[in-house]
């Protein structure tokens, strides 16, 4: 059973649109299956996709959007978990090096940038899915969206150097508590997503750093060891993923 390219493109775009609108996955899947079945039968009878969704895919997507239920878990569980996870990475770096000063700017700015990025990203996906854009415009949007978060995070780093905001200094005991909390977050994320990668990546990043602190070699060799571990790990991850892709095909 094959659909025409137009129909398939429409279905793909609709799925992206509904995904970026945080709609309940089960409901989306049910509806998509029904539409696919309908499109297939309609095409067999010589109708085209316009017959089914009307002249404006955007209008039809909006029609569906209002009827499919929103998945409340997204902002209640998903985003906080990703946010905590990202935060755990940031904090681990400092905590392991025993840096215990946190500026208010970074504490508030980083999560804020993160949430803005999610909103922008979803907005972009909805926009691209609902409008027929040229390849040039689409590529431009992707490029801008690729740089925007980096620019914003760098902006915070730079601003932190020039703008003085109140500092939060935590005690050494608190620092250990932070490390333990971060470990729990990594484990919770791994359990929630049922993916060990959420534990393996921080383990590869941080365990060598901790071990090396107790070994008496100069800073340069430490850096080289850590970097080579990260590079070897990243490369094997890429190769592993490529193999999986090949298997799928």
């Amino acid at each position: 059973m094959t659909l025409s390219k137009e129909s398939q493109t429409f279905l793909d775009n609709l799925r992206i649109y509904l995904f970026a609108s945080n709609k309940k996955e089960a409901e989306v899947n049910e509806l998509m299956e029904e539409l696919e079945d309908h499109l297939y039968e309609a095409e067999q009878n010589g109708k085209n996709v316009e017959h089914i969704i009307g002249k404006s895919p955007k209008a039809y997507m909006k029609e569906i959007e209002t009827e499919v239920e929103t998945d409340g878990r997204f902002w209640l569980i998903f985003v906080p978990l990703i946010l905590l996870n990202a935060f755990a990475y940031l904090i681990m770096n400092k905590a392991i090096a025993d840096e215990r000063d946190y500026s208010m700017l970074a504490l508030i700015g980083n999560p804020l940038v993160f949430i803005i990025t999610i909103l922008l990203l979803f907005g972009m996906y909805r926009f691209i899915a609902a409008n027929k854009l040229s390849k040039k415009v689409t590529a431009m949007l992707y490029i801008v969206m690729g740089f925007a978060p980096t620019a914003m995070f760098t902006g915070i780093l730079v601003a932190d150097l020039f703008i003085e905001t109140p500092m939060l200094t935590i005690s050494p005991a608190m620092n250990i508590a932070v490390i333990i909390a971060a470990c729990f977050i990594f484990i919770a994320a791994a359990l929630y997503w049922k993916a060990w990668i959420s534990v393996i990546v921080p383990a590869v990043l941080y365990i060598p750093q901790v071990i090396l602190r107790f070994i008496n070699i100069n800073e340069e060799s430490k850096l080289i060891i850590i970097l080579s571990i990260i590079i070897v790990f990243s490369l094997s991850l890429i190769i592993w993923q490529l193999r999986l892709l090949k298997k799928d095909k």
Partner: protein
Amino acid sequence: MSSSQLLKGILEGCLLAVIAERETYGYEMVEKLASYGFTMVSEGSIYPLLLRMKKEGLVTTTSKTLPSGGPKRKYYKLTAEGHAELEDFKGRWAVISTSMDNILKGD
């Protein structure tokens, strides 16, 4: 006002009537409507509506695998509430259609 805009307001009534005849699925409903003379500008409009009708408890659905294979097909059936809603609609429609006839005839 185009006929498709007119149809939009009464589409739920149409679907209730079609499903009341027998258990059916989306594409078949559209064909049934067409056989009665209702041609739709966008056939897909029935799905958001069916979704709402299901949430309102007017219809229930069952997924059946086709003997020819392929994806499952979703069949709709009216609930008791759906039948009641259809009767309600018939009553409202009778009033509207007589009134409309009278206006157009200039009574």
